[in-house]
């Protein structure tokens, strides 16, 4: 094989390669807008709410963040992969209900219910992904349908089986204590109360970041979101990647669902409706593009943290919590504008 005559192999550095400062590189990160926003929200509540800076407040904020954050991670991955999952919120409740009702009705060890719930929830995720990849309908419609169906099933089955809208308590059943230790315990580090969900959250963020940036699957996730046809043309398994992403959402819904169940030992069947939007908001504030192909897991965590600070900060500031939704909407708008602006600047000044 002869080298083409047009190849000027040069050792000298390219004169066009202007050294990009670290600041510029930082500006190119998807989560930058969210970090700036988080800092602003943090400073804001530090001034308006006296108790905001106390260690106990911080642990409360982190706990609130983690309950959203655990789901925001896979929702962000899915959004990078170019799709939505509107059923993510009620799927958490479904997962908790299956676990609770199976254990109670079968008088089985709580862990058996937890295992069955894992399979059932993954099946729902697979259903979402499979129907989506087969029909090629918009994921918005398909998961909206799943959302409605699950909401109905949650209420219907719970009433059918236990006669009320909540499940029977499983607090006295075998295996409950150890399951609670895994999904809903808390411990103290240096005088600060730490919920175990925070560990789940941070673990998931680290795992998702690793997968996204350092594995083949991560490369495929960016590719199926940024250009599915181009990805298919070079041999990326587009269908499998998308189904896998829906199942990742289901897996995290299972973790969240078990936490929901173990922290109280009963589950309200109507819970979870509306949470899917919070997950999407956290992912978008964290720099995920609605059109797919761009975003980060760390960004989703920062987005969830902003949510946690805002929801609890309003309480610490002793405002009426009714204002929270307005605040959240304003944050979403500002963060998205900031993201768009930062990205434009970073790309223009290359």
């Amino acid at each position: 094989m002869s080298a083409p005559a047009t190849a000027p192999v040069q050792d000298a550095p390219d004169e066009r390669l202007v050294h990009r400062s670290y600041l510029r590189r930082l500006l190119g990160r998807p989560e930058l807008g969210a970090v700036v926003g988080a800092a602003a929200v943090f400073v804001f509540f530090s001034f308006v709410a006296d108790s905001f800076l106390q260690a106990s407040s911080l642990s409360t904020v982190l706990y609130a963040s983690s309950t959203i954050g655990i789901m925001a991670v896979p929702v962000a991955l899915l959004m990078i992969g170019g799709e939505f999952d509107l059923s993510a919120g009620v799927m958490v409740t479904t997962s908790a209900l299956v676990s609770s009702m199976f254990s109670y009705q079968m008088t089985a060890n709580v862990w058996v219910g937890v295992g069955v719930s894992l399979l059932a929830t993954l099946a729902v995720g697979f259903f979402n992904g499979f129907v989506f990849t087969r029909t090629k309908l918009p994921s918005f419609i398909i998961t909206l349908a799943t959302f409605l169906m699950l909401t109905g099933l949650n209420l219907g089955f719970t009433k059918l089986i236990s006669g009320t809208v909540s499940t029977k308590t499983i607090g006295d059943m075998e295996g409950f204590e150890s399951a609670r230790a895994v999904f809903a315990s808390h411990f103290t580090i240096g005088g600060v109360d730490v919920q175990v969900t925070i560990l789940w959250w941070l673990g998931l963020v680290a795992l998702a970041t690793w997968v996204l940036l350092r594995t083949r699957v991560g490369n495929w996730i960016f590719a199926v979101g940024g250009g599915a046809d181009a990805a298919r043309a070079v041999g990326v398994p587009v269908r499998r990647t998308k189904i896998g992403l829906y199942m990742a959402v289901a897996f995290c819904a299972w973790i969240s669902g078990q936490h929901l169940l173990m922290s109280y030992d009963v589950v309200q069947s109507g819970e979870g409706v509306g949470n899917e939007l919070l997950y999407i908001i956290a992912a978008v504030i964290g720099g995920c593009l609605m059109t797919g192909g761009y975003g980060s897991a760390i960004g989703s965590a920062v987005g969830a943290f902003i949510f946690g600070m805002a929801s609890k900060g309003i309480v610490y500031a002793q405002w009426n919590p009714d204002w929270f939704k307005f605040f959240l909407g304003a944050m979403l708008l500002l963060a998205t504008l900031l993201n768009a602006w930062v990205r434009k600047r970073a790309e223009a000044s290359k």
Partner: protein
Amino acid sequence: MSASAKAGQEAGQEAAALVRLTDVSKFYGNIRALEGVSLEVHAGEITCVLGDNGAGKSTLIKIIAGLHQHDAGTFEIEGEETKLASPREALDRGIATVYQDLAVVPLMPVWRNFFLGSEPTKGAGPFKRLDVERMRETTRSELLRMGIDLRDVDQPIGTLSGGERQCVAIARAVHFGAKVLVLDEPTAALGVKQSGVVLKYVAAARDAGLGVVLITHNPHHAYLVGDRFVLLKRGAMAGSHAKSEIALDELTRQMAGGSELDQLSHELERAPVPDVIGGKHVGSGGE
């Protein structure tokens, strides 16, 4: 043409063609998209497929790329008759296709695009990870070898020009050991200079010993680099020529429809020029 290419050409003609289509047809329901098309691709040669819009160029490319299967005729890869089931199978058989618009994922860095679908890994089990250093290094050196001098392999590929994107896709196909490179209108959306750059890389790929199928509706571009020309018209073959048998003028004429073109130029000469075109007085006072 360089000496190596000539050698490749001679060797290629002795051996079986890399790809040979004989009387291939494709129907979509009752629509004849392609009928009785024959084409050969040899190592170190460029076969140009020329045709106007709707001539069946994209159907042909989809058959070679494994996106569609032909309904009649034979499709041989290195002398072996075959029907490709998927683009992945085509890739595994050494046929890489570069599409005009979907060659790359715009938001991803150049090096991620370069290895997309064939990423090298290191480590084992749960620690199996992308060999990022090697990916970056290989991307840079492979592009340089093709003569593409890139500023930064970390920039999103969408920030490159259209010509550069095509070149990256071509370099990628060459790196992954493609024997046949199928290019779908690589110069269609490009300016004159950019087209020249892309054609240079097409020639570089040929010199590297690949067989190239160049789909285009620009006979000037085709004639610059092509060794064989296959003309398509309304889904059927309108001609097949080696470069030595045909001059550019004749190729352009046939491509544009031969006698139809004569008729058109005749009509244009005689037709009275409208007084008002787009609200402005044009033409009438011009000459």
